[in-house]
């Protein structure tokens, strides 16, 4: 780790940042997918009739049980068997997004179940249908309670985006590997730089979520322990 190698990594920073941008795109895609699907799975698990809820549990079991890299390969190569060509980026968003949805569904399910049953009863007693009660009464509370757990999931999937390089998404790990392959001496400094970039992103992300949490904070609605 000579000074020279650090200077070279400094000059390569734009390349690493370009890679990091791809990680961020992956992150946004997979978090959004995970949020929508995860919420749906959680609602089904809590409210749907038993056979349907069992299907949701099976879904969660599958996506939590299969290693991430295997999921990536399944989504990258799988669709070809049915004549569907899928890009590495899309495959990564789907694989990591569905996986995240399984974890997010747990967070949401816990939060929904933490909302006292009386809230639902009160909404129903006003004449709200079930879905309307969920939408206006249960979800606004459950989402607030979910933020802490969601912050964890954010940090976790942020790091997971680097796995996409396994199927050829040119993200930051791949860029760092380019540097290393070109100049063996850069191996350590390049990956130290990547580590720092992720630490900064994790900090910024959690800070933002914390800010949202404070903005949405309501007296009396905290995580009950």
């Amino acid at each position, binding site marked *: 780790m000579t000074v020279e190698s650090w200077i070279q990594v400094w000059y*390569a920073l734009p390349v690493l940042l370009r890679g990091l941008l791809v990680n961020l795109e992956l992150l946004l895609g997979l978090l959004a997918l995970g949020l929508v699907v995860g919420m749906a799975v959680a609602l089904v698990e809590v409210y749907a009739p038993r056979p349907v809820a069992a299907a949701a549990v099976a879904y969660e079991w599958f996506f939590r049980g299969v290693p991430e890299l295997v999921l990536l390969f399944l989504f990258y*190569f799988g669709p070809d068997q049915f004549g569907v*060509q899928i890009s590495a980026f899309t495959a990564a968003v789907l694989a990591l997004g569905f996986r995240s949805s399984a974890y997010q569904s747990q967070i949401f399910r816990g939060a929904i179940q933490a909302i006292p049953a009386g809230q639902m009863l009160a909404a129903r007693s006003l004449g709200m249908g079930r879905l309307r009660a969920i939408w206006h009464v249960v979800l606004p509370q459950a989402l607030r309670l979910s933020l802490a757990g969601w912050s964890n999931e954010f940090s976790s999937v942020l790091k997971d985006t680097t796995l996409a390089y*396994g199927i050829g998404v040119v993200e930051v790990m791949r860029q760092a590997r*380019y540097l290393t*392959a*070109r100049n*063996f001496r850069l*191996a350590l400094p390049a990956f130290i730089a990547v580590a720092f970039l992720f630490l900064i992103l994790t900090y910024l992300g959690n800070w933002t979520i914390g800010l949202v949490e404070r903005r949405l904070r309501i007296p009396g609605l905290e995580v009950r322990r």
Partner: protein
Amino acid sequence: MRKRAWLWALVGIVLVGGVALGAEKFVVGCDIAWAPFEWVSPKGAYLGFDLDVMRMIAILEGYEIEIRDTAFDSIIPAVVAGKVDIGASGFTITAERAEVVDFSQAYWTSDQAVVVREGSGLNIVTALSGGAKVGAQRGTTGAGWVEDNLVGKGVNVTLVLYETYPEAVLDLLAGRLDAVVQDEAPSQQAVKEYAGQLVIAGIIKTYEEFGFLVAKGDPKRILPRINEGMAKLKASGAWDNLVAAYFGPSLDKIEAAWEACISILVEERDVVRYAQCLADRATQ
């Protein structure tokens, strides 16, 4: 600088975006981390012997290519699945691989080099016996050779496998390995990078041949065009110039030459002059 950015864009449009013009386009899968066959310059350009051969043949044979960076282990599955049309990543032609893909004519013959630390006093025999720790990249010919001819035959060595070649070299430098077995060209490159620290103890003559590969049965009829293109390159002298440019000079020099010459290939689409330019500048 602005002009250069414009040039990169052009490289992208001509080599990648050909599909927009309705031109025939093939996806080339390559693990771009094996100089001098393929690597990424500090400015982010994909270059290397394999990739330039692919570009030149594409021009000669009138199709477009998109180079898609793919992990080495995934290239053949990607070709089989139809996600990638051509595998061009220093693939040794083996009977095992030929069961699932079809190969072009051989374009390179490689031997295995044994790299050791300078001053270690090891020669090709002592580096590969007497309890030596030998590193190699997983799935490569070098790893297979050590497995078959040393470990399998009871020679007292320990084989340590790595995902990438650079990792093996770094462990050699750190003293955790006694030797690394790898193809000759990348080994030469490593020794050049670490002049005074690494040295080639000897060459194992394996004569393995590299080929470009396509899906079994060549459904898109690509191989005849690759073979014909290679013949044209060799007949015109461009091939020898490309070899001179990529095997020998330092990566810095090759990169500078490539940057100076690539417009001849991309804009003028003149294969012969490009190879000449590259060789002249790289070997200056």
